[in-house]
């Protein structure tokens, strides 16, 4: 059995009212922000199932927006976020889709990146899709994400660069659209690597997108 902490039952300190529908929503937003890592002027949220039907009364809409704007789960100004936000256009859509998790959202930034994730309970989250590629990011590891043209040798090139930094790889996940098509790689790391290392990875031939994702607090 996995060892658990007493702080799993006497935490987190959070803005209410729901760990799954509020704190989880903030963390999904924060994770999307960490993945996108760029200024954005427009964000759209598509809320599914329970997020769509009871999200309003739980402040899920406010939590998601506050998250992408970088607010932490215990920030009480989340409830006033609609009055605070400037320079970012935001919109919401509500859908029912039984193939999705009960608490699920798509976060679309600047029409460029779609990040899908679920709030899986007690404030824990999981990002499971980025721009159509399957993912498995729960915010507990620093993660290097790259997209590239599928071809042999990519994993070793990337791990070579990371190994030179003496950083241990905790887990590795790859996916591709088709053989020789677009592929994605998630490298979970025990300690964060610098953005300069991410830049180095980006210089590998046929890599067209790299983001250096920081883990979430707690």
């Amino acid at each position: 059995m996995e060892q658990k902490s007493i702080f799993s039952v006497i935490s987190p300190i959070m803005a209410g009212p729901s760990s799954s529908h509020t704190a989880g929503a903030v963390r999904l937003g924060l994770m999307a922000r960490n993945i996108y890592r760029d200024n954005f002027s427009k964000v759209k949220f598509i809320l599914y199932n329970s997020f769509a039907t009871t999200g309003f009364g739980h402040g899920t809409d406010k939590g998601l927006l506050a998250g992408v704007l970088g607010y932490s789960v215990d920030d009480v100004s989340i409830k006033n976020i609609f009055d605070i936000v400037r320079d970012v256009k935001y919109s919401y859509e509500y859908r029912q889709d039984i193939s999705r998790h009960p608490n699920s959202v798509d976060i679309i930034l600047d029409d460029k990146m779609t990040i899908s994730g679920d709030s899986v309970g007690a404030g824990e989250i999981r990002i499971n899709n980025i721009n159509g590629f399957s993912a498995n990011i729960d915010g507990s590891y620093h993660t290097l994400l790259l997209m590239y043209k599928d071809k042999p040798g990519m994993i070793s090139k990337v791990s070579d660069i990371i190994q030179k930094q003496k950083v241990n790889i905790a887990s590795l996940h790859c996916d591709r659209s088709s053989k020789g098509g677009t592929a994605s790689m998630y490298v979970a790391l025990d300690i964060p690597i610098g953005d300069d290392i991410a830049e180095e990875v980006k210089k590998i031939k046929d890599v067209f997108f790299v983001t250096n994702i920081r883990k979430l607090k707690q």
Partner: protein
Amino acid sequence: MTVLSFSDLNERCCRENKSVYQIALEEEALLQETAGEVIRLKVLENLLAMKDSIKHGLKSTEKSISGWCGDDCEKLRNGYKKRGALFGSVFEKITTYALAVTEENLRMGRIVACPTAGSCGIVPAVIIAAAEENKIPETIQINGLLTAGLIGLIISNKVQLAGAVAGCQAECGVASAMAASALAEMLGGSVKQILNASALALKNILGLTCDPVCGLVEVPCIKRNAFLAIHAVTAVELALCGVESKIPIDEVVDTLKITGQLMSPLLKETSQGGLAKTKTALGLEKLLFKNVN
């Protein structure tokens, strides 16, 4: 955590002549690879956040997001001012504080999930009201919260603490058992008395369903926090007088889990049954969601 059951915990406490909070501290320090003092500081941070949530909740009468709730704590304060609580000042503070925290949660204020956000009023109300009324110092309050943490953790090893899994037994019920253990520790109870207090609290909420109106953590959740905070005190009073739970706490937890499995999904946080399907609830639902759907 090497302490996986309450019999493990009891055995270890007896063998090493330690209280529950000492084991909690040792195990947590081991898990986080840090010193016990660091863990105590982290517990203190949570305790202080709980005190803040009471302070803010007592001041505010702002309504919840849905607009239905948020002023019951004020009613209690005003009512008690006029006539006092029938069962004295501890009762008065516990009920008021429980509502203060839960209402603060509903208006998106800062609270400590303990174990969940929906049950966040119970542990703080009991620990802090009892500490104020009995002049119990902060270090002992930390011991209480550590005790509550380990009790909740051991229960959560067997059953997931979510209304969707086992009904409100697993949220407000477990919070009440945690609060009982904390108070028993703070009042100098023995390990046996602490475990009996938790068992008695838990045993007497078995079967409690989760049927929130409109799926919101408002009705019946807010007031239930006040009821189950008092429930914890009843368990402690009995346990400190030597009353024992005839069914040991491990078996009570197993029963809670099985009862949760037997409970219809309609009564487990789906808002498809119970209070959520009453005429009044359906009326409120129409009103609240007219703009959404």
